[in-house]
């Protein structure tokens, strides 16, 4: 089969009439080759009064070919030249009519503004968005609190099963990876400490450093960062997908409060799980530190333990543990707020999930800073 052709059969521009003949296969595959022919044929010819295209020899025509013919006709007609096609097979008539009926009236694209205005605009929008975010977070904390209050008044309304399910996923399933990472962090910390403290003959202080650092700061931070990446992101993705498929709207129309049904169990689960994980994570980090101190630094386990008892107090441990539920709340709330802001597209789901992880890690660290100031000012 030959590709589509368009040839001049007869015509003198002087007499004002041209006759073209189209032949071959006028389909999508050949459209790229046919378009230049159409463009060549529609170059302006002054004094052209009428033109006709003979289509009897077209072997195959699809909507691409039909549109290209139609485009040529429209170009000529716009120049007030009579244009028509002759010899169109009956089979193709319906297709041609369909294409002919298309108005092609695409509204012009929205105008682009100049780049300075656009930059300022986007900076402004970002600032507003940051502010809106804070408002949304506060609102979410508020509605979670009211939902919690309602549930306390009517305990039978609490989705206990759902919470246990989330607790399993956020807590139990996260335990192995949390233990592994915190053991490693403790070990690295001890190794670095011993390596540098040895120069001053102060090896033993490594125990103080590991103990205080792990219990006050690192244990809870590492756990929170892991949980933000692991569970915060999955909260956002789950809620976002439910939002996309109108499941959240369905709940609302059935008279359920999505905050009570979907969000409260998730947030409670994370608030319960993070302190427990922090406890185990801190213990694992101490274990890792102790192991390295023994094998690499030659500090015997008994020495390590007795030094640890002197270096840290119950308060050190409490400071770390006290922070855990608040940080967990931040992660949970950010994840849920982001999830509920997902719009219709898959892209927005991905963007929100990224935002959820980035924002919650950022806020956890900011919160840690505030806690540091707070504890310093009350002398802990």
């Amino acid at each position, binding site marked *: 089969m030959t590709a589509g052709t368009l040839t001049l059969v007869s015509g003198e521009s002087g007499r004002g009439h041209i006759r073209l003949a189209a032949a071959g296969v006028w*389909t*999508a*595959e050949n*459209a*790229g080759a046919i*378009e230049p022919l159409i463009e060549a044929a529609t170059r302006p010819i002054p004094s052209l009064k009428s033109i006709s295209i003979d289509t009897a020899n077209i072997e195959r*025509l*699809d*909507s*691409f070919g039909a*549109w*290209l013919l139609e*485009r040529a006709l429209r170009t000529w007609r716009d120049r007030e030249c009579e244009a028509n096609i002759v010899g169109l097979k009956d*089979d*193709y*008539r*319906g*297709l041609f009519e*369909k*294409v002919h*009926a*298309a*108005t*092609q*009236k*695409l*509204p012009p*694209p929205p105008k682009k503004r100049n780049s300075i205005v656009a930059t300022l605009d986007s900076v402004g929008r970002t600032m507003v968005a940051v502010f809106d975010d804070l408002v949304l977070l506060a609102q979410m904390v508020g509605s979670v609190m009211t939902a919690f209050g309602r549930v306390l008044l009517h305990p039978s309304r609490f989705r206990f099963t759902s919470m246990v399910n989330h607790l399993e996923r956020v807590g139990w399933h996260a335990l192995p990876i949390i233990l592994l990472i915190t053991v490693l962090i403790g070990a690295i910390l001890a190794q670095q400490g011993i390596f540098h403290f040895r120069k001053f003959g102060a090896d033993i202080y490594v125990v103080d450093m590991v103990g205080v650092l792990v219990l006050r700061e690192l244990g809870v931070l590492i756990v929170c960062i892991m949980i933000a990446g692991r569970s915060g992101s999955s909260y956002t993705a789950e809620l976002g997908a439910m939002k996309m498929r109108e499941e959240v709207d369905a709940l609302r129309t059935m008279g359920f409060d999505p905050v009570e049904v979907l969000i409260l169990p998730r947030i409670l689960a994370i608030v319960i799980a993070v302190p427990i994980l922090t406890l185990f994570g801190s213990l694992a980090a101490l274990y890792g530190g102790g192991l390295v101190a023994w094998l690499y630094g030659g500090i015997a386990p008994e020495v390590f333990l007795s030094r640890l008892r002197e270096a840290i107090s119950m308060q050190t441990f409490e400071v770390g543990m006290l922070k855990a539920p608040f940080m967990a709340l931040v992660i949970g709330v950010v994840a849920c707020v982001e999830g509920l802001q997902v*719009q*219709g*597209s*898959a*892209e*927005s789901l991905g963007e929100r999930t990224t935002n959820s992880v980035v924002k919650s890690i950022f806020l956890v660290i900011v919160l840690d800073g505030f806690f540091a100031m707070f504890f310093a000012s009350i002398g802990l």
Partner: protein
Amino acid sequence: MANAREPVIQVRDLVVELKSNRILNGVTLDVYRGEILGFVGASGAGKSVLTRTIVGLLPKVEGTIEVFGTNLDGLDEDQRRDIERRWGILFQQGALFSSLTVGQNVEFPMLEYLDISPKLMTEMAITKLEMVGLKPEVYRKYPSELSGGMIKRVALARALALDPEILFLDEPTSGLDPISAHEFDQLILTLQRTSQMAIFMVTHDLDSLYATCDRIAVLLDGKIGVTGNIDTMLASEQPWLKAYFHGARARVGQHGKQ
């Protein structure tokens, strides 16, 4: 034009299991060039599963599937692309790409398979959109801004983007108002007449079956129970078919296919 009885799809003894449930149990079916095959069966009978298996989205346990005379097993990537370029699929839920505009959705297959100018591509996308009864304005909208019926139409426009030789339609008229559904039927008929397209249409819409289908195949208990034209269906004594075509919602003796 090629022989009117040239089969474009030949399915032989197809067995499909999902999660060790046998959904299709020996389906044998031919679809011929230029015909509209209506495919009916109870909800959950496996119509969508059969469609998805033919186009290679679900694995089969046994049987062969030939499309354009080529067995789909053991094709290399290029051969498969050649075949995929020649069919268009309208999914039951539309399956538009949510992060692309309507225009980009329709242009997506063109961009992949055709070497044409951006101007022509835009014109073709708009032509297809107008062919399925949409206004050119939707070109810049996103799928989440469309109504259910509009999503169906955009999905059809995308399925038609490359002027396919086989068109799979999974419940194309569900969710359309009766006028649009009628226009849809007319569009399908035009497409079939003008381009000798084979159309494999899963539908529950009796009006569509009457108005468009040359042949109807019925999926019963994982097999093709009966095939034939609408008169065969109406005359059948098979209990499910009787209930289907003579039930409360059926209007027997309606307009046949013109």
